[in-house]
């Protein structure tokens, strides 16, 4: 069970959080302009990386805020957390 450093509350047990899938997938501003394939790309296609992955989490049993997590899926080490709207760390 991870310890996640919520950017608003600090370190908490994983059981207080809920995972929300891959991060930085922006909902298209004009969905009607998209072809079926483009829409499907947004709707269904997700990466499943062994290694560094950017993902969304929400402190569901805490402050209820969404934020981003950089996690190495091979060993579950969390490399960074940052708020929604912030740029992902480059290193």
């Amino acid at each position: 069970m991870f310890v996640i450093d919520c950017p608003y509350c600090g370190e908490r047990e994983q059981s207080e959080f809920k995972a929300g899938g891959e991060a930085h997938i922006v909902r298209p501003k004009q969905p009607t302009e998209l072809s079926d394939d483009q829409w499907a790309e947004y709707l269904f296609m997700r990466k499943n990386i062994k290694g560094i992955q950017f993902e969304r989490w929400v402190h569901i049993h805490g402050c209820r805020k969404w934020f981003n997590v950089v996690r190495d899926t091979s060993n579950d080490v969390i490399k960074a957390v940052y708020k929604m709207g912030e740029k992902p760390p480059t290193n």
Partner: protein
Amino acid sequence: MTKNLRVKTSKFIDETYKISFKFNGTTYYGYKGDTLASALLANDIHLVGRSFKYHRPRGIMTAGSEEPNAIVQLHSNSARTEPNVRATELEIYEGLEASSQNCWPSVNFDIGGINNFLSPLLPAGFYYKTFMWPASFWEKYEYFIRKSAGLGKSPTKPDPDIYEHKYIHCDVLVVGAGISGILAAKTAAKNGFKTLLVDEKSYLGGSTIYQNSEKYRINNQNSSSWLEKEINEIKKLKNLEIKTRTSVAAFHGYNFLLARESLTDHIPLNQRKNKTRQRLLKIRAKKVLMATGSLERPLIFDNNDRPGILLSSAIEKYANLFGVACGEKNVIFTNNDSGYETASSLFQKGIDVQAIIDNRENIDSKLIKEAEKNNIKIYKGYTVVNTFGYKRINKISVMQLSKDGQKVVGSKISIACDCLGISGGWTPAVHLFTQSGGKLKFRDEDQVFIPDKYPSDQISIGSCNGEFTLDEILSSLPNKLKEFLNITKTDYENLEVQSSYNKSKRNIWLLPSDKIFGKTKSFIDYQNDATARDIKLALREGFRSIEHVKRYTTTGMGTDQGKLGNMHALGIISETANTKMGEIGTTTFRPPYTPLTFGTIVGRNVGEYFDIFRKTPIHEWHVKNKAEFENVGQWKRAWFYPKDGEKMHDAVQRESKAARDSAGILDASTLGKIDIQGTDASEFLNRVYTNAWSKLAIGKCRYGLMLNEDGMVYDDGVTTRLDENHYIMTTTTGGAATVLGKLEDYLQTEWPELDVYLTSVTDHYATVSVCGPNSKKIVSQVIPDLDFSDDNFPHMSFKNAKIGKIKCRIMRISFTGEQSYEINVQANYGKSVWEKCMEIGKEFNITPYGTETMHLLRAEKGFIIVGQDTDATMTPIDLQMDWIVSKKKYDFIGKRSLYRSDTIKEDRKQLVGLLTENPDEVLEEGAQIVADIRKSPIEMLGHVTSSYYSPNLKKSIALGVVRGGKNMMGQKLIIPMENKQINVTVADPVFLDKENKRLNA
């Protein structure tokens, strides 16, 4: 006739405290401090069980949690019965009753023993191969296989004991209280770390505390007295918590460990009442020091599993710690110096040692010299080739090993004995370390896996790190602790340690025999009856991965999880397949390290505490009026109110009729309620619902349908505009939390620019819904100040009002098709408002109705229930609800998905009404719908989603989803049931009052 094999007094055994216990129905005596195993051995009992597959007689093999054979059932047939308890761990208490497992009718005469003679027919994979054909017979085979599978019997009565869970946060956790663990815990605690020290045993000090301490000296004292002083000191440390009888079951990522603390398992049953039996500790440690020690390896030779054959270290422990001799004529068989330590301890206690068989040839050490001096016959360069005695070993035969150790040479020598100690060297207990994600490396010189890469802030110290002698451990410990704890000094710099142990070892994974290999039974995994032959068979049949060999042969499965047999399986694979041990790796050692009871895992979450449930503020009234309840999410909802012994059907028919003929009342408090405020509230609703919201006037209500981004219906409910920037949304009862979560997600991540605030107010309001043709008369008496005329208060509108001093919000909305008013009041007034409605409604026969009637009434009107008539594959178009999907809005959640190539297909499953040919026949919900039953395979068109007998229409009605159903109006379809077919006609899903006349009647 049993003997007494208690030898010299041991300070760990209290001989003034005699304890009686029963084993297989016979009463025996032991002393306080005994385990069941030591007490049985003191009574000269070795045979305690039968092996799993071949039902071979098996005895006590070890003196710890790695025990594969001596597994017993406690208190058979009582509520406290427990299977698979290791006799080597169980401390005896007055009244203990234990019995053997896996044998019938008794451990001495076991019919399953026939399997032993059939064993040539039962090799690895026997079940896979034999019962594959003919495939249709599997069900018959399975019955018999299942009967013979499994070890003990699980309890059938409720567990009378109390269990609990506890969280512990500490700076340093030390696992294992042997000498390394004690010194590490003391160092950590003295340097200001909040430290927790746990050990599975009842005493501290590990093996050092009872070992033959004249052999080991620390600073010129014998090692056990030196360690005893350290133990007395750590007991006084404030920063240190010590928990004995606490077994770490699992080591997860981020230094999260689960441990079982056993509190009452060692005290008499009659003293356990109202005490917590076991605690599941959930430990989060900043740093973890693993000091889990090592396990002695057996040796693999023909018939190495007879009762009376024990690990050499176990014999030493029984002699030194419990003062028990395991036999009167002992032989030690070893490939390293450990066997001589045992011999020396036995000699000191006056226990006879007949001989020592040593695989090593040209070898000398202080320990060997001592054995020679004690006139013990030593066979150097020899091996045991066979053992004799069915229920207890009585003889062994030994032969000389060839130079390469692959063959035996010379003539066979027989040695009589009643106990054989075996030592194949030591295996670090790295199970927990690998559970945490740690990677091992193989050390060639002594053929052991040791920790290599640590995945978290932890280290392994002592023999679990491959340091097997006291001088090795104590010379490296100070620097390791300094580095790990980032401190400058320990109390243990430059200790003077004397040890007489010679580290040489002659490792032969599978010892040769004079018999042909196919005739030998050399057990590798005692618990699962896996032999060396099984491993080789698996290799011959092409298995190479250790994980596959494990599954095929069952080596290292069960409670063993690679404790005893694993290394030899690897060794034999390595030799046979000519692969390096390090490349093969080990199997995955899974948690729990030792088995946990279900009681410990569930803790206090049993009975009514199994899951939380929510009650409405009106719940008490429903209970008092004999409602039956159903679970909706976590809510207990009134289901129906049986009157005078009514069955459910009759109650529902009565309630449904009353609601349409006069008046009904429903507790709707469980509906999800979300308060929405902010200048962009209207825009937000526009984006989350399929219909338009901007033009909804203040004081008006509107039904909304919410989709997922994939276009599928997610939730529905009525939302009311309370003010310019203020709405209250209702959701389905079960969907309240997830809808709020989803809306928050969009708000925070996709549309942070919107000025909108969401608050869950589900629990803040109680909702009383009064419906029926007389509802208006009732509510206008309940709230006399409000003008209920249709002009002032039309359908789909809302009013603020007061009942006396109680503020309330009244929505005129309907889920039944009847005129209907929902009165929302602050939760704690809910019951009084309900009672007031009941009292005033009496003259109109106001009838409380539950969820079942609610479902029936809405089905008459063709209103859907999200989650019953829909699953995650229904679009609003599929539901024939095109009217609610705005064509004008540029975007809303799920809009784009409504015209994907898949969602616009004509032959999707669509919601339709179904009418049965026989109006009295009620369909089964979930029944399949087909058009043609002659064609094979029969094409499934859909299924029935809702079905009732309508007392108002006097016929059976149903909703269902049917492929292409929209264009099938009037068509005949078939519902095939087990014994009959039911003919149905596709109909409009609105069965009653399509013109909505009743809403304003």
